[in-house]
């Protein structure tokens, strides 16, 4: 990723009004945004657009968020794309499950904008995690 190019974020949520608001906010934060409103389109769109990060709702038509997470994990070119789950569901019964399924973070709706933007930024910061020292 070069500094000149805006990172592309795929926003997946079945509420088009929320998608529109998130798009506005993400664009204002200097991200390119692509969207999907169901599970099937989300995976297809991820394959076509190769986003740098995905914001994913859990309750989705045509394959819910967990199905999407599972599909993404099994596509080589997408397995390492960080996914931030943004869902209205109860974190107590969904957060661990989402993290185990490969999500990088879980936010319950309505999420604090600053925290969400910070999490996006952290998960986009290149290189860091993989160059780290791990004592053998």
């Amino acid at each position, binding site marked *: 990723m070069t500094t000149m190019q805006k990172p592309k974020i795929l926003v997946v949520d079945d*509420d088009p*009004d*929320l998608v529109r*608001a*998130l798009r*506005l*906010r993400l664009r*204002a934060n200097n991200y390119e945004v692509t969207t999907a409103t169901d599970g099937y389109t989300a995976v297809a769109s991820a394959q076509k657009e190769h986003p740098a990060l995905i914001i994913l709702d859990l309750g989705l038509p045509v394959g819910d968020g967990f199905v999407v997470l599972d599909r993404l994990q099994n596509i080589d070119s997408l397995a390492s794309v960080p996914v931030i789950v943004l869902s*209205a*569901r*109860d974190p*107590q019964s969904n*957060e*661990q499950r989402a*993290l185990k399924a490969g*999500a*990088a*973070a*879980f936010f*319950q*709706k*309505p*999420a604090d*904008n600053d925290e969400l933007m*910070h999490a996006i930024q*952290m*998960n986009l*910061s290149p290189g*860091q*995690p*993989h160059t*780290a*020292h*791990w*004592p053998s």
Partner: protein
Amino acid sequence: MDDRTTQVLLIEDNPGDADLVRLRLLEGKSPVNVNCVHRLSEGLASLSSDTPTVVLLDLNLPDSHGAETFRRVRDHSPNVPIVVLSGLDDQVLAERAVHQGVQDYLVKGDISSKHLERAIRYAVERQALTLSLQIAQKQQLDFKNQFLDHVSHELRTPLTCIHQYVTLLLDGLAGPVSPDQTDHLRTILKSVNQLHAMLRDLLEATRAETGKMRIEPRCVSLNDLIHQTVAMMLPAADAKKIGLEIGVAVNLPLVHADPDRVLEVLINLVDNAIKFTPMNGAVMVQASVVEADMGTVYVSVADTGRGINPETKALIFERLYQDPDSVDNNRSGLGLGLFICREIVRLHGGRISVSSDPGQGSTFTFTLPAYSLPKLLAPVCAYEGRLRPNFILLRVELTPISSPPRGSWKDTAQQCLDVVRRCVYLDKDLVLPPMGNSGAGETFFIAAACDLEKSGIMATRIREQLERIPDLKAKCILTIVAAQVELPSNLASAPLEEQVQQLSEVFTGMIKASMERKQSATSQRLSNSNWAEPRPNRN
């Protein structure tokens, strides 16, 4: 055998009384089968193999007396109706038994077959009614909780939308906003946040009611939590010119509690105190221990508000209770705050109460268990009444690579703790509760009964298991070090209790020194000769 045959289990030790009751039963019109036993133990054994239609029970048996007798039968077979057979002299007891779940009682000298038949029939019917009532109640509760769960989830979706668009406008992302408009938007946002808090409370209360609320106790400083609370609540107090003060005893021990949950309780109590205290009043948060019981920490939040009347005091911790005299009625919330507080405190094994006189302010007090290393160590550090010979302290340190850490650090830390717990021997090693808040990194200490050489095997096992957690390598650096525990030479002659106490002190000293060293200079972590990276010696 006919399905309509009434199966009677008669528990009666007096042969004369037993024969009389049997006779009366057989005289009746409907078919009956009587199984007569003379002792409670025989009765319970019979109940374990067969379920009779009804139990006829004498309260005074060779192996059980009085109220105890029916309690044991009821506890053993809660769904079987019981009719007590009482003598003339224990009618009061029989009446009390009826209040406590027995279906009926008959006075032995005064039993006709008609009487008996009717008593049995009604007892069976009443029992069936009670049972169906209980089932209906449970179904209703389940339904209500499912409904609340569903509603709070569904309400979040439009709430999220409102929240997003209001913040878009407020942040100027949809064009310039005038100061007046900003003010209005802030009012909307405040209401959105209130709704959000109510939804959270609703879900919490549902969890509490269904036993799904969880706590993760750690070894934490209550002093820090109180200061954190006061810092958060200061703006609200300042707005009403209320003095918000802290009084923490110097000798306050650490507590064994879930910091997030305790913070929730403190914020709730202080928020209430501020809400119900007039301008220029005072709110005081205190924490102390009493010498007689150093195992319990008392935390209190006192205000100079209008106080609580005695009738309200009894109800204040109940679900959905709302103060009818609230000055702030249109914004009083759902009345779940104190109920949630009580449940959180209860999960910690503590109590919460309020003392107040109208006009004199109120004081809410709750207790938390003090963190006691000897108490935790006692079951593992001794064997056959003697202290185990060798101890080591193992330190497992997780340092996140990115700051703040990638993903959900708290969950990662908890997952690691669970893994570490599975790597030790439960009967002789102790994974100490994590220290403080899991902020930048997490350190687990393990008090293990082995020598330094053997600790290598444990360290390798822990490392191997932790490295299996997906992505952990990408999230943090793992360091495992161990140190031998040097016990005072004269320790062996002391009583075991004192030995455990001293061992705890040595452990505490080592942990403190280790944490301080970590804070002062991370780079010197391994330079100290006491601490070494354990190497497995598999020869």
